[in-house]
């Protein structure tokens, strides 16, 4: 049957290119594999040529898929589920890319695109390493292509196709209006598209420009970890164990720089658009991308050691292996749905868990089979892999699944340890390589500890446990990682002053003396006047913070000094020192901004209170009534006005800050999405004022219900006695009694004062019950009504009069007037800029090293 208003051509083309990319990547993998295996040059050359064509076709297919999907989203072709699910007519053009990678399919595609780009560069530059490395890349492309295939094998779905039509996706199946005769058992109406007017839209939290550029960087970082991994596999495969080391170094540096920047762009996004009040929350998704980066950094350092001294080749193998394996593992964690509620920004489960697990499985066991020493070992490894896979499938027990992966990794490490050469002689403890290795080890173990903690949901699943995260999950990470920071900061500070192999003691002390003295003096100064007194976790932890601050200052000063003392100011060669200098700034920025973070909105509420002391606990949220200025820290804060987005249910709130102590004055515009397209509730975007040394950061935590009720501005009087019922527009209320209070404080009420309370229960038709107690006071000769409110019901209740016969004249007001308020939180983040600039400097330093090493490689080949 034909349907009106559908554009089928892009989808058909898309399907075609998906199948083509599946085939082309398989051909490329196979041909590169034969080329790498073949001992005869002519044969290898022939297969390599074929493989190149296949890979180029693969690249064209992937770019076409990318282009077609973007075309579908940009032209709002809502007959395709992907466009309907992730975009909408009101979405600004700049966010079209953000909705492209909101879904799993789009982000797999992004990853795949980067593999193509990297593959083309490798094809051009890798020479004798091209065939083995590109076998790995092509195979990864094949695996990613299966993720987009959307093919069913006897009930098992392989991949999720981004070109699936809305009407085929099941979304419309239970909506009667889309079916003939409003009967969901009937086929769809031919003109069903006339009902599909708008898409589901992009999650409002992702409507931020960082979401446009952060994923491409992050996925380029993820994608690029395959290159050092590919080289490491190539080394094991060709048995030329150390020859790849120089060629892989620029790639590893590139990967570290891009992945690092990608992760921190995500942090910046979290800072600007999430409301946990910071940039890093040790969320599983953040951790899962940090861990490969930490291991990559460890791998870079051991690779440098190997290039200079011949030590640490085995560790380099292991680090590059695990960096990539943890990229796959993080893919599994974030996309399988296993994190469930423990993460705020995991993808939704697409029912591809088996396939995601297989991705890990085939790479680990494939690497083991290729890395085995003899033919027999290879066959043995493959047989073991198949047996374990079948066992996992038929026993279907999670522990077996996990153990199979661990055995695979163990086997690769065994093959590395038994084949890769290592120097027997011990490193001197006065050598640079000794301390670099220790630094790498610390990074690596820190990564393992982080991923261990992050894997709690996996642990629960595998061992059928129900362990919940600790009371303060962030502190659980911080209390360990602060010591990692201390060790790393010290090591980056002094180890460049050491020489490879051995350092004369006198030489070392002479060079390091001045930077150390300067750093100690400066650190003492910062700690003395910096007022760093984070006392939430006790004096031990504060001591650790001080130590870490001192060490990061040491790292900053020692590395800056080394550019002149060690490198004689040759900036081109100083990429390492610049990167370490930047990293020192990163550490300092993290420490200062977190330990000196101030809660500005800490307050005692606004309660005009008679009793109920528990309510007076100071809290972190402040309510601002429109036009009424409230003190907050050193500021007087006023909620001035609000305005709505022309097309969306998004409101902007103008909040004015005016300092009482100086002339500082500014306006912030935090905004919030309210009841946005089925996402009931409030999604709030912070707003911050940036200064060179701190940010003031505020966001809305609560709003009145925006569904405006009819505004009866006056109190409607009701004469009631206890037990009577009063109806209002959204339910009814019962007066429970009238209680006269005694023992009133004379200083407030005067001699003849009285206080009467009328406790009431309010039964809303939503099923909610509220209890309120309006009060009437007679103090110092005056009547004073103390109304009570039910915000959710827009209700204000006030006792007008209490008659001697215990009847009460009760005023009921249903109003929108009381609704004009916002509740917000505000923080001060000091020195957060040190962190952001530190990141940029680190990345520049790493990229400078990359350029330097790549040039070196080119020169040695020429």
């Amino acid at each position, binding site marked *: 049957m034909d349907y009106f208003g559908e554009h089928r051509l892009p989808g058909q083309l898309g399907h075609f290119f998906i199948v083509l990319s599946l085939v082309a990547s398989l051909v490329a993998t196979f041909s590169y594999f034969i080329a790498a295996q073949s001992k005869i040059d002519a044969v290898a050359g022939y297969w390599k040529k074929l493989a190149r064509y296949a890979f180029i076709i693969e690249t064209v297919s992937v770019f076409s898929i990318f282009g077609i999907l973007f075309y579908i989203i940009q032209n709002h072709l809502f007959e395709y589920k992907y466009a309907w699910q992730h975009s909408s007519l009101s979405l600004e053009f700049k966010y079209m890319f953000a909705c492209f990678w909101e879904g799993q399919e789009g982000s797999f595609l992004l990853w795949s695109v980067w593999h193509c780009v990297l593959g083309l560069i490798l094809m051009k530059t890798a020479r004798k390493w091209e065939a083995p490395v590109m076998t790995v890349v092509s195979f990864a492309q094949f695996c990613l292509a299966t993720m987009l295939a959307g093919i069913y094998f006897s009930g098992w779905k392989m991949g999720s196709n981004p070109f699936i039509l809305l009407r085929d996706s099941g979304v419309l199946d239970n909506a009667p209006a889309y079916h003939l005769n409003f009967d969901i058992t009937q086929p769809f*109406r031919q003109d069903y598209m*006339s009902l599909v007017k708008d898409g589901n839209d992009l999650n409002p939290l992702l409507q931020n420009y960082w979401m446009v550029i952060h994923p491409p960087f992050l996925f380029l970082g993820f994608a690029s970890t395959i290159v050092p991994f590919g080289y490491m596999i190539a080394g094991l495969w060709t048995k030329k164990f150390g020859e790849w080391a120089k060629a892989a170094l620029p790639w590893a540096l590139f990967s570290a720089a891009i992945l690092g920047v990608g992760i921190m762009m995500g942090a910046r996004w979290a800072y600007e658009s999430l409301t946990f009040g910071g940039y890093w929350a040790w969320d599983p998704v953040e951790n899962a991308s940090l861990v490969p980066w930490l291991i990559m950094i460890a791998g870079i350092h051991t690779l440098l050691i190997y290039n200079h001294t011949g030590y640490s080749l085995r560790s380099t193998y292991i680090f590059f292996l695990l960096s990539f394996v943890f990229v796959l593992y993080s893919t599994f964690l974030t996309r399988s749905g296993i994190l469930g509620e423990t993460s705020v920004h995991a993808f*939704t489960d697409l029912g591809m868990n088996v396939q995601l697990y297989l991705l890990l499985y085939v790479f680990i066991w494939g690497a083991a089979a290729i890395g085995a020493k003899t033919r027999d070992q290879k066959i043995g490894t493959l047989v073991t892999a198949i047996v374990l896979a079948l066992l996992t499938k038929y026993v279907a027990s999670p522990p077996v699944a996990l153990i199979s992966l661990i055995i695979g990794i163990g086997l690769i490490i065994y093959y590395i340890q038994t084949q890769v050469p290592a120097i027997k002689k011990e490193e001197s403890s006065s050598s640079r390589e000794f301390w670099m*290795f220790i630094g790498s080890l610390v990074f690596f173990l820190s990564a393992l500890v982080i991923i261990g903690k992050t894997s709690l949901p996996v642990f629960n699943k595998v061992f059928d446990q129900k362990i*919940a*995260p600790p009371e303060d999950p962030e502190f659980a990470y911080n209390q*360990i990682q602060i010591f990692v920071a201390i060790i790393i900061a010290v090591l980056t500070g002094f180890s460049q002053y050491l020489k490879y192999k051995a350092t004369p003691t006198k030489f070392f002390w002479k060079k390091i003396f001045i930077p150390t003295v300067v750093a100690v003096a400066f650190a003492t100064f910062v700690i003395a006047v910096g007022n760093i007194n984070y006392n939430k976790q006790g004096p031990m932890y504060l001591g650790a913070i001080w130590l870490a601050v001192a060490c990061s200052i040491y790292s900053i000063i020692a590395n800056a000094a080394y550019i002149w003392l060690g490198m004689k100011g040759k900036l081109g060669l100083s990429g390492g020192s610049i990167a370490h200098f930047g990293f020192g700034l990163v550490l300092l920025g993290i420490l200062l901004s977190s330990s000196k973070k101030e809660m500005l909105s800490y307050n005692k509420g606004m309660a005009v209170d008679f009793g109920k002391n528990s*309510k007076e606990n100071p809290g972190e949220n402040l309510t601002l009534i429109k036009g009424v200025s409230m003190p907050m820290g050193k500021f007087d804060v006023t909620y001035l006005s609000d305005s709505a987005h022309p097309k969306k249910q998004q409101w902007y709130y103008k909040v004015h800050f005016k300092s009482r102590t100086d002339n500082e004055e500014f306006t912030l515009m935090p905004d919030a999405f309210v009841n946005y397209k089925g996402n009931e509730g409030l999604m709030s975007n912070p707003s911050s004022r940036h200064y060179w040394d701190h940010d003031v950061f505020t966001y809305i935590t609560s709003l009145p219900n925006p569904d405006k009720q009819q505004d009866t501005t006056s109190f409607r009087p009701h004469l009631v006695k206890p037990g009577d019922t009063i109806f209002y527009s959204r339910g009814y209320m019962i007066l429970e009694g009238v209680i006269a209070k005694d023992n009133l404080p004379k200083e407030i009420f005067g001699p003849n004062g009285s206080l009467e309370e009328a406790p009431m229960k309010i039964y809303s038709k939503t099923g909610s019950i509220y209890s309120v107690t309006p009060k009437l006071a007679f103090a110092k000769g005056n009547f004073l009504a103390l109304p009570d409110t039910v915000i*959710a019901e827009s209700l204000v209740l006030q006792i007008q009069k209490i008659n001697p016969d215990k009847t009460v004249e009760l005023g009921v007001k249903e109003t929108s007037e009381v609704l004009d308020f916002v509740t917000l939180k505000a923080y001060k983040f000091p020195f957060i800029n040190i962190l952001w600039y530190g990141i940029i400097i680190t990345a520049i330093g790493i990229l400078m090293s990359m350029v330097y090493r790549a040039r070196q490689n080119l020169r040695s080949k020429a």
Partner: protein
Amino acid sequence: MKKIHIVLLVFIAAAIAVLISFLKTATTYDTVETAMNKPGKFVHLMARWDRNQPMEYDAVNNPNYLSFTAVDTLGRSVKVIYHNPKPENFEMSEKLVLQGKYEDGYFNCKTIQTKCPSKYKDDMKTAEKNVQKASESNPGNADTKY
């Protein structure tokens, strides 16, 4: 044994110690009854809001005080006090994960995770609901065409 090996062993021992101590600080998922049986201990209480009992929240008077009654699947209930604004989708939630401690006769809650029929994620259920809502608001349209 090489120095590096000694360092390696020390670090690995430290890492294992850290992970084990992490498991010790880890908490548990509890019902009202088991949470009440360990007063002062931080737990994750799985429950829902008992709509038949009064809820107290007034953002104008005090945005940092919410009190309500939570009831678990076994029917036991407990009074909850939460010193933060009411989560915006509180009313829609069908399940709550309350993290906090039972003490002095009530559950002192530090964080509330609401689980709504539609998570904020692009959950397909939300999507389906939106479609149905759209189609409900559009029946007139459909009638004219058929």
